[in-house]
């Protein structure tokens, strides 16, 4: 028997290992005891197919087969050494791979029930599949498929990319980047369904169970987050809709807010299922929660915008076509730049004939959702800022959102103009110069976006969805924007906050002060040289420009040197005020 075992040991290949052979071997061991030869053969089986030999093998037998002839042994060793030196890389890698598998075969023995939180990659299901019927003696190896657990190196992974078989438990992909890469290369709907069902069941039954500890749940959410960055899993949205109504706002805060940007609702009403429970927590939580809420939804909008970006009309095209008669537009080919690829291409000015209707519907749906989301945030953020007394953190996160909204058309080609007036009006009264500077930049971006929208409408025949949060009509954007622009310029530059102007445009400063406030309200109270946000800059400017012995200095003295003061602010890293004034006042436009 030892010789037979030795011979089998030398002859056995991976495809020769089968379940019935393992069982026969175990029966033999039962009868005669753990003979070294039998253990050696079983060890080899375990190396090739660890799932068929799951029990632990004692490796006290270092030598399974005695060598009877010393001369033969030394001769064989010399020949092996000669071969090893001339082995090619592939053979050496195979040897290394076998060694790795041998080590893995020794180590594997976990707790009684080896239920790992995230299962490991294995091909246990092959055990059932390998037992082929007698009529068809075709092995999986001969089909050309390579089980994923047998891939040891990245080079081998790339080499056999089109033949790799997925592991038996696909949830292993949560921890395995290579498997995720394989999924992205070959997105099989059946495999994704396996993953979806596993995840759905876990979140339904285990996530809310007290038996699974907090750390594991956090770990899974983190893994899910990393996975969602590459794959859209519908279960994530359903999980959030189910979990958030009972969420306390404290557990898994980071993970939850990181998952929200990856939802893809089909309508705004569906998104409300996530927003409504978050809104309740928003109004009852601290400023940090509020900031995370705004940041998360900004990221959500940003992801959608990136996913549905379209071709962008360049500035040169705008200038060209604003001067062209509309009648002559038809038939002229124009060049648009695709932001994503950087390539330019000629486009039919009559527009979107080449795009299929499904894609158009999807884009319109996303635009509508974005529009409603912006209107929603406009209402919620204002209340949040009032509750937190205009905390700077909220101002910063809100400005991130405004910067995204104002550049949707220019940077991403999303035909959407949304003007959240309530938030903008709130930010105008900030006492932080950085906030006011970013706000000026946002207003300039809106101006540029509106000019681009005119080109899109007239030339590319591309409908632009626009709205102002306070007014549902589509044509109100220019009116409200002009009102906003006049308010900002009047407040910051011209020092004409409360002076009445023509009733064409609404103003937030349009009020009739009570008699006791007459004469007290100062038109120039919030300019860039007298406002509370600029006191420090005004003092510094006067210090630099006025004589040291000048006794009386006041910010009002800057008024006649406003242009120089703009340059001073630019030097202090606030060029936005100069950009706003130069782009929007006639006197400076001519310069």
């Amino acid at each position, binding site marked *: 028997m030892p010789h037979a075992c030795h011979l089998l040991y030398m002859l056995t290949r991976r495809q020769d290992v089968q379940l019935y052979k393992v069982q026969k071997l*175990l029966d033999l061991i039962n009868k005669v005891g753990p003979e070294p030869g039998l253990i050696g053969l079983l060890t080899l089986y375990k190396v090739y197919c660890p799932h068929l030999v799951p029990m632990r093998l004692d490796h006290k037998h270092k030598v399974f087969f005695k060598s009877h002839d010393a001369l033969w042994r030394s001769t064989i060793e010399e020949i092996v050494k000669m071969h090893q030196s001339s082995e090619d890389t592939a053979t050496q890698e195979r040897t290394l791979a076998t060694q790795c598998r041998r080590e893995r075969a020794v180590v594997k023995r976990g707790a*009684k029930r080896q239920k790992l939180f995230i299962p490991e990659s294995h091909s246990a299901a092959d055990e059932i599949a390998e037992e082929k*019927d007698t009529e068809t003696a075709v092995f999986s190896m001969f089909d050309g498929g390579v089980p994923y657990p047998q891939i040891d190196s990245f080079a081998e992974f790339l080499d056999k990319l089109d033949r790799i078989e997925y592991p038996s438990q696909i949830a292993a992909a949560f921890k395995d980047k290579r498997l995720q890469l394989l999924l992205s290369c070959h997105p099989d709907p059946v495999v994704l369904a396996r993953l979806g*069902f596993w995840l*759905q*069941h876990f979140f339904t*039954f285990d996530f809310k169970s007290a038996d699974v500890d907090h750390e594991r749940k956090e770990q899974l959410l983190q893994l899910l987050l990393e996975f969602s960055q590459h794959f859209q899993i*519908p279960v994530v949205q359903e999980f959030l809709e189910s979990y958030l*109504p009972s969420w306390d706002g404290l557990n898994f805060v980071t993970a939850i807010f990181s998952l929200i940007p990856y939802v893809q609702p089909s309508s705004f009403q569906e998104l409300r299922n996530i927003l409504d429970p978050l809104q309740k927590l928003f109004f009852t939580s601290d400023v940090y929660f509020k900031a995370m809420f705004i940041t998360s939804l900004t990221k959500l909008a940003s992801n959608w915008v990136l996913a549905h970006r379209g071709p962008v009309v360049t500035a040169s095209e705008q200038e060209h076509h604003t001067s062209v008669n509309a009648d002559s537009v038809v038939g002229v080919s124009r060049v648009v730049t695709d932001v994503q690829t950087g390539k330019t291409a000629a486009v039919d000015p009559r527009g979107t004939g080449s795009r299929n209707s499904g894609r158009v519907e999807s884009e319109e749906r996303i635009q509508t959702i974005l529009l409603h989301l912006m209107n929603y945030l406009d209402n919620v953020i*204002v209340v949040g800022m009032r509750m937190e007394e205009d905390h700077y953190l909220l101002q910063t996160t809100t400005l991130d959102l405004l910067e995204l909204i104002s550049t949707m058309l220019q940077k991403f080609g999303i035909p959407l103009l949304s003007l959240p007036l309530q938030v903008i009006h709130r930010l105008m009264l900030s006492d932080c110069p950085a906030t006011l500077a970013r706000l000026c930049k946002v207003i300039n971006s809106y101006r540029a976006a509106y000019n681009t929208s005119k080109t899109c409408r007239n030339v590319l025949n591309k409908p632009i969805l626009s709205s102002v949060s306070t007014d549902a009509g589509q044509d109100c954007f220019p009116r409200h924007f002009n009102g906003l622009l006049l308010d900002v310029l009047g407040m910051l530059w011209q020092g004409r906050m409360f002076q009445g102007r023509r009733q064409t445009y609404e103003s937030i400063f349009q009020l009739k002060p009570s008699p006791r406030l007459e004469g007290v309200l100062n038109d120039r109270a919030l300019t860039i040289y007298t406002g509370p946000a600029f006191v420090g800059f005004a003092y510094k400017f006067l210090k630099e420009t006025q004589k040291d012995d000048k006794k009386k200095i006041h910010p009002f003295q800057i008024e006649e040197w406003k242009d120089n003061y703009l340059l001073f602010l630019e030097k202090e890293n606030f060029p936005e005020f100069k950009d706003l004034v130069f782009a929007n006042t006639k006197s400076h436009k001519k310069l």
Partner: protein
Amino acid sequence: MAWSTPIYTPASGKFCSSTRIPRTPQSRRLIAPRDTFIRQREVTEDGYRGLLKKTWILYSLSPLYNFKTDTVSLKKYARSLDNAFSSERRPTLEESGPPEKCEFNVYEGLKFHESDNDALQIQVKEENVSGRGSTIVLTALFLCVNVDNVVPDNLSSHFRYYPVIMVTGTKSRTEVLLNWIERHFDCHSSPLTFNNADMQWMLACWCSQLEGTITMPVLLRYSVSEFCDGISTIDIRCEAPFCKELWDRLNGKEKVEADAEDVNRFVKAIESHHEYAMKILFSKLNLSEVGTSVAYVSKMGKLKLFSSENIYMALSFVCVAAQNRFQQLARH
């Protein structure tokens, strides 16, 4: 300073919107379709006696991938499960124990609807020490009774859905079995627990059926350990005919399907009666165990069947509860 637009606060209507209300079952069937039930009962060898008066532990399963119920496949599965048990029972080659033999077969008599999957039974037998015969040490049953298929049509050839597997046997063997199922069919298993709404449904609907002339009392066990020290549960026992009569008076004798309103009416009636008598607000407590002549169930997922006549109702409730929970996260 006057704002040109009104300021909305959380109390105003602008922020109020319909929140998503968790789905509750609309209505459930109380008795199996008569002719189907008779046909199914005749098919079983022992009239479901093998299922009755045993304590089963319930587990929910996600859809099984590549799971087949033909004879050849079941034999393969049996051999593979043998191997799993033998390696579990023999962590090293030096240790050994009596060998275990697994059998997979289709359990006839539980296919009440065309769309239900065939119930599948697994029996694990251990050879007796004396060498004569063997003892069944574990029995498991894959159940699919009155359940909608959660697998989309385009994937139905790859997946088979059994919402519940009920197991009777030792914990270690059960773990081996579940582990084996998860590893070989890429599914996820979890202990099936019931919430208060599920327990009330089962109480109400099982009380509506009176089994035989001598019946067990109806047991309502409320868990109070989280509210007060020293008392873990409070039991209420009622005569089964009394509960049956109450149901008939409230909802009608010949009711074939019950809805949430029927259930709430019945449970409220029982609880309010006992609240008046015992001065304990049972409506504020959660049911932890319910026992009727049809079946006994605990919220931790234990089930004991008593009635073969009403086996459909007992098993369908359990399967539908598991399926409804699973589908709470399913996309429409």
